């Protein structure tokens, strides 16, 4: 029988609330289940790791609700804000990685990132982490 996958790796590539919540929900739940979890933020997803942008992330047009409406619905369900959820993830042991090519592209510096980032990595490091046979890797 194949061994159970005990590591979850997620590429969070979208800079919308409905693109980022699922990544954070799955990563925090994975840790609660005793797995290791890694979140690799890239392209649009990097907004959540960027001080100047993290609080202004909106839902996608596809979701059909405004930022305010979504925040109201989420808080009714006891759901923290994206940034609080990110901090919760970090505190619970989720590893948070920023994408180096995205940072180069937009001229971002380490000082621009929110304080939870564990490391800035590129494609090769990411692939090494994701290549472990006991890893479940998702692209969101």
């Amino acid at each position, binding site marked *: 029988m194949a061994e159970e996958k005990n590591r979850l790796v997620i590429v969070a590539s979208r800079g919308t609330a409905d693109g980022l919540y699922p990544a954070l929900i799955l990563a925090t*739940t994975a840790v*609660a289940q005793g797995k290791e979890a890694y979140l690799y933020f890239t392209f649009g997803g990097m907004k959540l790791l960027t001080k100047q942008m993290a609080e202004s992330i909106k839902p996608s047009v596809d979701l059909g609700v405004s930022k305010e409406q979504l925040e109201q619905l989420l808080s009714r*369900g*006891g759901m923290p804000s994206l940034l609080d959820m990110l901090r*919760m993830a970090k505190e619970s042991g989720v590893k948070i990685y920023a994408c180096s090519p995205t940072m180069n592209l937009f001229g971002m510096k380490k000082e621009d990132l929110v304080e939870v980032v564990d490391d800035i990595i590129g494609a090769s490091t990411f692939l090494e982490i994701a290549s472990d046979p006991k890893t479940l890797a998702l692209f969101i």
Partner: protein
Amino acid sequence: MSVVKPVLTVDVRGEMCPMPVLKTRQAITQINIGDVIEVLATDPASKSDLESWARKTGNKIVAVEEAETQAGVYRFLIQRLR
């Protein structure tokens, strides 16, 4: 139905996935092995989510019942086993 006495209550009524599992996990680390916590939840997925969480973490759901006083509220008794 159960004579087990919980040492802690996690009230996540009204809260959505993943909060019931995250808060249950946080609570179970605060009790001794062998002790039991009570979880009150309304999320319709909480039953399957907490059962799956218990299987993965090796803890035991001693009882699940729909609370008699409030329809749509699930009451779980979960024993810390490790």
